[in-house]
C-alpha cells in the first residue's frame, strides 16, 4: 500500500517538473497557448472519463456543461461585474445543479436511451444559449469577458495562464485519484465490473452515478470558466454537438478508466489539427477514421491497445 502511494507521488512529481520545465523554458507564446488548450481539454476529459470509464455512462452532451460554465462566468463577471473568482463558484454551482436536475431522470436510462437523452439535453442547452440573446449575446457571441486577476498577477495569454490551467489540472487529477482510491472508487469499480452484482451487494448505483455525473459537470464548468477568461469571447457554436463528440473522442482515445489517459487523449486531439494543418480539407475524414479505427481495434484506448500489440509481438517472437 505504501509502495503504491510512493509511486503515485513520484508520478505527480515528474508531472510537475515536466510542466514547470516546459513553462519556464519556452518563451514562445504559441506553444504555451497550445499547451494551455491541452490543459483545458484535459479537464473536460477527466470529468467525462470518470463518467464513461468508471460508471459506463455514455454522454453525448458534455459540451453543455462546458458552455454553462463559460456563459455563467461571462454573464456574471462581464455584464454584472462580479468578481470572476466568485463567478467561478457560481459557474460550478450552476453546472452541478443542472446536472442534478437532468441526471435524476436521465441516469435511470441505459445504453442507447441514455446516449440519446444526453444528446437531447446537450442540444437543448445549446439552443437555449443561442436564443436567449439578451443574456448571452445569442449566436453573435458574448464580447467583453474580463481578464482574470489575483492580487498583482494578471492572467493573460502566455506563461501566467499556462501555469494557472495546469495547476488546476494537477489539483483535478489528485481529486480524481483520491476519489478512485476511496470507498466511492471501489463502488465505482464494482459498477464497472457488473452493475447487477453491485446492486446485489448493496451499492446504491443510481446515487453513485448521479454523484459522478455532477462531479464531471463541475470539472466541465471549471474548464468552461478557464476557456472564457482565456479567449475573452465565447459563442454558442463552440459548445455544441460536435464538441461533445470531440470530448468523447478524447476519452476514448486516451483510454477510458485511466486518469493519464484523459491527458493523452486531450493532447492527441488538440495537437492533431495543428499537425494536419496542411491537410485541413481532410481533417474531418481523418478524425472520423481515427475514431472508428480506435474503437474497432482498440476499444480500451490507445495506450492499452499499443501495450497489447507489444505483448502479442513479444509473445510471437518467443
Amino acid at each position: 500500500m505504501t509502495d503504491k502511494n510512493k509511486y503515485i507521488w513520484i508520478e505527480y512529481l515528474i508531472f510537475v517538473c515536466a510542466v514547470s520545465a516546459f513553462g519556464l523554458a519556452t518563451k514562445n507564446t504559441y506553444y504555451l497557448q497550445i499547451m494551455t488548450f491541452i490543459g483545458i481539454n484535459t479537464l473536460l476529459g477527466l470529468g467525462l472519463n470518470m463518467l464513461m470509464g468508471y460508471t459506463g455512462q455514455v454522454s453525448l452532451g458534455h459540451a453543455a456543461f462546458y458552455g454553462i460554465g463559460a456563459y455563467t462566468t461571462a454573464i456574471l463577471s462581464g455584464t454584472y461585474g462580479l468578481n470572476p473568482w466568485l463567478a467561478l463558484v457560481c459557474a460550478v454551482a450552476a453546472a452541478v445543479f443542472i446536472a442534478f436536475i437532468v441526471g435524476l431522470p436521465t441516469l435511470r436510462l441505459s445504453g442507447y436511451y441514455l446516449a440519446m437523452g444526453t444528446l437531447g439535453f446537450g442540444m437543448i442547452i445549446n439552443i437555449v444559449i443561442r436564443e436567449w440573446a439578451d443574456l448571452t449575446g445569442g449566436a453573435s457571441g458574448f464580447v467583453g469577458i474580463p481578464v482574470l486577476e489575483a492580487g498583482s498577477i494578471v492572467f493573460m495569454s502566455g506563461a501566467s495562464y499556462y501555469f494557472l490551467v495546469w495547476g488546476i489540472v494537477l489539483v483535478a487529477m489528485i481529486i480524481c485519484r483520491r476519489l478512485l482510491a476511496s470507498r466511492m472508487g471501489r463502488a465505482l469499480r464494482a459498477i464497472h465490473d457488473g452493475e447487477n452484482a453491485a446492486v446485489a451487494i448493496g451499492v446504491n448505483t443510481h446515487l453513485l452515478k448521479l454523484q459522478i455525473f455532477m462531479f464531471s459537470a463541475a470539472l466541465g464548468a471549471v474548464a468552461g470558466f478557464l476557456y472564457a477568461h482565456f479567449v475573452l469571447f465565447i459563442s454558442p457554436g463552440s459548445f455544441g454537438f460536435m464538441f461533445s463528440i470531440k470530448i468523447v473522442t478524447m476519452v476514448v482515445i486516451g483510454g477510458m478508466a485511466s486518469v493519464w489517459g484523459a491527458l493523452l487523449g486531450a493532447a492527441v486531439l488538440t495537437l492533431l489539427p495543428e499537425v494536419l494543418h496542411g491537410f485541413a480539407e481532410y481533417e474531418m475524414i481523418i478524425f472520423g477514421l481515427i475514431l472508428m479505427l480506435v474503437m474497432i481495434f482498440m476499444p480500451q484506448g490507445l495506450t492499452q491497445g499499443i501495450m497489447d500489440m507489444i505483448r502479442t509481438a513479444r509473445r510471437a517472437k518467443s
Partner: protein
Amino acid sequence: MQEIVQYLFSGITTGAVYAVIAVGLSMLYSSTELINFAHGEFVMIGALVMVTLWVHLGLPLPVAVAGAVAAGCVLGIVFERFAIRTARNPEPITLIIITVGAGIFLKGAAMIVWGKDPFSMPSFSSHESIEIFGAALLPQSIWIVTAALVLAGGIHLFLKQTLTGKAMVACAVNKKAAWLSGIPSEKMGILAFGISTGCGAIAGIFIAPITMSSYDMGTILGLKGFCAAMIGGLGSLWGAFAGGLLLGILESLGAGLISSGLKDAIAFVLLLLILYIRPGGLFAAKEAKRF
C-alpha cells in the same frame, strides 16, 4: 384559422421527411438491436448521388434512383462488414462511437467529393403547389409521404411474411437460438444493414427536391430522425412513421403559434419527455414488441 391548415401541411411535409428517415433507422434496430448514428449521412449520400446521376449526368429518373439506392446499400454493407462486425468489443458504448465516427468520416468524404456548396434538384413531378382549404401543398410532399408509407408497409410485410424477414427478426430476438436453427446470422446482419441504409438513401432521394443537398445536410436530419424514431418507439416501424409525422406537425405548429427560434428545441424536448415518461415510445406495446 387558415394559417393553422398551412402549418399542418408544412408539418406533414417536414414530418414525412422525418418519418422516412426514422423508418430506416427503426428497421435496423428491430433487426439488429443497433442504432446507427451515421444514418443521417446515408440520407445525405442518397441525395448527393442522386444529384450527380440525375442532374449532372442527366441519366433517366429510374436509373438515377436505382443508382443512388444501390450506393446507399453498398456503403451500408461495407460499413457493416468492416466497422461493425470486426469490432472487438460490441458493447453499446463502443458501437455508438463507431457509428458516430463513421458519420463524421462519410461527411468528410462527401465534402471532398462534392465540395462545400449546396445543390438543388428539380421535383419529380410538377413544381406548382396544390391548393387545399386555402393552404398550399407541394406535390413533392405527397411523394415523400407515399415513399414513407410504402417503405414502412413494405418492410413490415417483409419482416412478417417472408422467410428471410422472419429469420432476420429471429436473429434479433436471440442470436444463438437463431444460429442453432440454421439461420446464418452474418448474412442477416449484412442484409439488415443493406436494407436500412438503402432506406436512408431513398429518404435522401425523395427529400432532395425540397431541401438543398449539401455534405452537411445529414447531421441535423439524422438527429431529428432519431428523435422521431424514439418518440414512436424504437423498433416499431409504424411507430417511426407516426413519430416522424407527429414531430413534423408539432414543430410546425410550434414555429407558427409560439416561436420560430425555439423550433429546433421542440424535437429534443419531446425526446426527453418520451425517454422519461414512456421510454418504449408512444406506439410500443406494453411488452416492448417489435412491430
